[in-house]
Each structure stands twice: as C-alpha cells, then as structure tokens.
C-alpha cells in the first residue's frame, strides 16, 4: 500500500508577538526578611533579586495564563479563531487534572483548539516553543499560542530561606505562526534524569526544595554548551546575537552563561531583578520586557535557554518579532 496523506505545511515557523502578566503584589527583600533570617544585601549578592511578584489567592495558573495569552494574542493581531493549538508550560499546578490549556483557550474565546499542558519545569517554555514550531512545520497546527504560567508561591515553604527568596509568580506567552523564512531555530533539548532529586517537590504535602550548590554548578557548567549548540544549529555566531535570554534562575548563573557564550554584542536578560525566578514563565516575561523597553530590534536574533528540574534543558535561537 502507498503511504498515508500528510498535510501541507509552512517551511518555517516564527514568533508573531509576546505577551506577559505580572501579578500586582510586589514582595520586597525587606518584607521577606521580616519572616525569615535573611536580608536585602544577602539576597541581592547571592541571587540578584530585588523584588518579586506574588499572585493573589484568586489568581491561579489559568488566570495568569489568560492574562499573558490574551496580551500575546492582542499583540499578534490574530483573532482567537486563528489559533488551533494551545500549549501551556507549567510545573506549579495545584492540581494535575484537568490540564490548564483547555480552560485558558476557552476563556480567550479560542474554539476547540488542540490544548495540553507540558511540564519541563524551568525549561518548559523552550520545550513548548520547540513543540509549537514542529507542529506548525509538520502541518499539525497553523497558529499556536504558547504560554508559560507559574504560581510557584503555592509550593513554597515561606520559612525556608533557601527557596522563599528565589521563586515567584507570573506568566508569559508567544504566538507562533508559519512563515516562508524560519524565525525559530532548531531546538536543542536534553535531560539528566539521574539528578531528578536536585530540584524537587517530594509529594503533595511538600514544598520545593533544591540542592543549591549542585544546581549552581550544573547550571554554570552544562548550560552554556547547550546554548552554543543551539546557535551553531541555527547558523548564528554568538557574537551576532542581539540578546541572550537564559531562564531567570539566579543572576549569577545568567551572567556565567552569558560570559561563557562570549555573546559580546548581546543584551543579557536580567528580569529576575524585579520578577524573581518564575520557572517556565521567566523567559517570555524577560523577552516581553526587553521588547517593550526597545532593548532588542525587530528581526534580531536572540538565544533562549531554559534549564531546571528534571533535570531538563532546552535552547533555541529566535528572531525578535
């Protein structure tokens, strides 16, 4: 028998627009130092965070995702009816069932799209973007809404100074569409499941705990080579990058990755300073702010690299919309 019919598809995929949502409540280092034994100077020098956003009781993964997704959709100029796939990356869901993507789609007026959640923790957005790009190029979707939405605060022990100073809430999103000229480079992704217990929530009664030093060592040594491979596979020299956007884990990790990449002409994302570590939401949050501020011109190449629990990691080069 002959093979089955496959759909016609776009040669490439690109990002049309980004959107973000930062919860209203700002929690400063001074506020945290009233409940745990820490201080502003210690947090700034170790982690680089000055303040973070914490979602309200009435804001869950869905609400955060709706805000960011709606903004990305509006910025893209597309109608909700144009979207036929919604991928929501999260690792901080309160409940594992149902997934959040169908509800976000419904709330945004997107009618019956393919919709699913994806968990690759802090690498989630890059995994979702790689999946969206592949879906468009395979003809499985025409336009994809990719969202990273996290409410890390519901998994934080507020008396644990090693995690409560780091993690925060927020959501970021991107609209991906087909294009003649590729604007999303090949994804380089991988994992190290033998280190599953380095960043972990043990069970439903537990909180996030991480082995800070081990994670720091891994992130400052293993991730720059992944980012460089993504540049190589996209055909972009590190020196030609306009932006380097690592997951906003820790300012010192971000700076170490950028330094090792030798991306000498790139703006390095530092959204962590005001947003904290929002896991799978941090990369689109950082990019949205950079674009809003005019830090990066439209069409310029930017390197994204996510890394975290799993352990898992993913990187790709994109063109700024």
């Amino acid at each position, binding site marked *: 028998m002959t093979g089955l019919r496959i759909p016609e598809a776009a040669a490439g995929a690109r990002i049309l627009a980004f959107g973000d949502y930062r919860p209203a409540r700002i929690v400063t280092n001074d506020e945290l130092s009233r409940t745990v034994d820490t201080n502003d100077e210690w947090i700034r*020098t*170790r982690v680089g965070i000055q303040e973070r956003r914490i979602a309200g009781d009435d804001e869950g993964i869905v609400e955060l995702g709706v805000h960011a997704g709606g903004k990305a959709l509006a910025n893209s100029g597309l109608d909700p009816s144009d979207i036929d796939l919604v991928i929501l990356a999260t690792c901080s869901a309160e409940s594992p069932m149902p997934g959040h993507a169908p509800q976000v789609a419904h709330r945004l007026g997107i009618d019956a799209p393919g919709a699913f959640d994806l968990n690759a923790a802090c690498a989630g957005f890059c995994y979702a973007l790689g999946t969206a790009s592949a879906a468009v190029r395979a003809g499985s979707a025409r336009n994809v809404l990719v969202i990273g939405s996290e409410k890390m605060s519901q998994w934080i022990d507020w008396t644990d100074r090693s995690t409560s100073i780091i993690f925060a809430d927020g959501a970021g999103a991107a609209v991906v569409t087909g294009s003649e000229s590729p604007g999303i480079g090949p994804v380089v992704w991988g994992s190290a499941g033998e280190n599953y217990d380095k960043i972990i929530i043990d069970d439903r009664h537990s909180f996030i705990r991480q082995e*800070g*030093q*081990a994670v*720091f*060592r891994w992130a*400052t*040594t293993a991730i720059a080579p992944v980012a460089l491979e993504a540049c190589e596979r996209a055909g972009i020299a590190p020196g030609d990058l306009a932006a380097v956007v690592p997951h906003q884990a820790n300012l*010192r990790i971000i700076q*170490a990755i950028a330094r090792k990449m030798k991306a000498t002409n790139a703006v390095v994302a530092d959204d962590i300073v005001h947003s904290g570590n929002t896991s799978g939401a941090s990369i689109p949050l950082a990019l949205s702010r950079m674009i809003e501020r005019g830090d990066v011109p439209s069409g310029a190449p930017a390197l994204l690299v996510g890394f975290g629990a799993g352990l898992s990691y993913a990187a790709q080069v994109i063109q700024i919309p």
Partner: protein
Amino acid sequence: MAVATEQQILDGLAEIIDEIVGIDKSEVTPEKNFIDDLDIDSLSMVEIAVAAQDRFGVEIPDDELRNLKSVQDVINFVQKLQS
C-alpha cells in the same frame, strides 16, 4: 598533566580568584581563609572549584569543597590528587 609545584598552584588559584571575584592576586596567600579573610561566598567557591578543575586537571566535588577552607587546603588537595 605535569604535577604543579605549590607556587604554581598558588599562582593559578590567584588568577582564577581574580577573574571570578575580582580580588587582587597579591591578596591570595596560603594562610587566607576563603570566607573569613577573602569574603568569598559558597556560590563563588563553586565557580572557583570548576575553574580550578579545568586548570589543574583534578575533580573537586561539592562534598570535598566544603572541607577546603583556606588557600593552603586547596593547594594540598590539588597536590594530593595530582601525585
């Protein structure tokens, strides 16, 4: 890799510390304690250990790193593993 002399390890370590935390090479002497004297925190120690691994060809795992309190401790550790 050839076994480094104590002075070579000290010089190499001073260069690494200068590059990572910006402490002048002359400040890095064997009796100095990383935390108390040089004001180097645990995360910088990880970066220094990784750089020292590449430079001296020895592995310095986190468990060992905890015991390396002074510049002399690192010199001794590297020499022990190189020999």
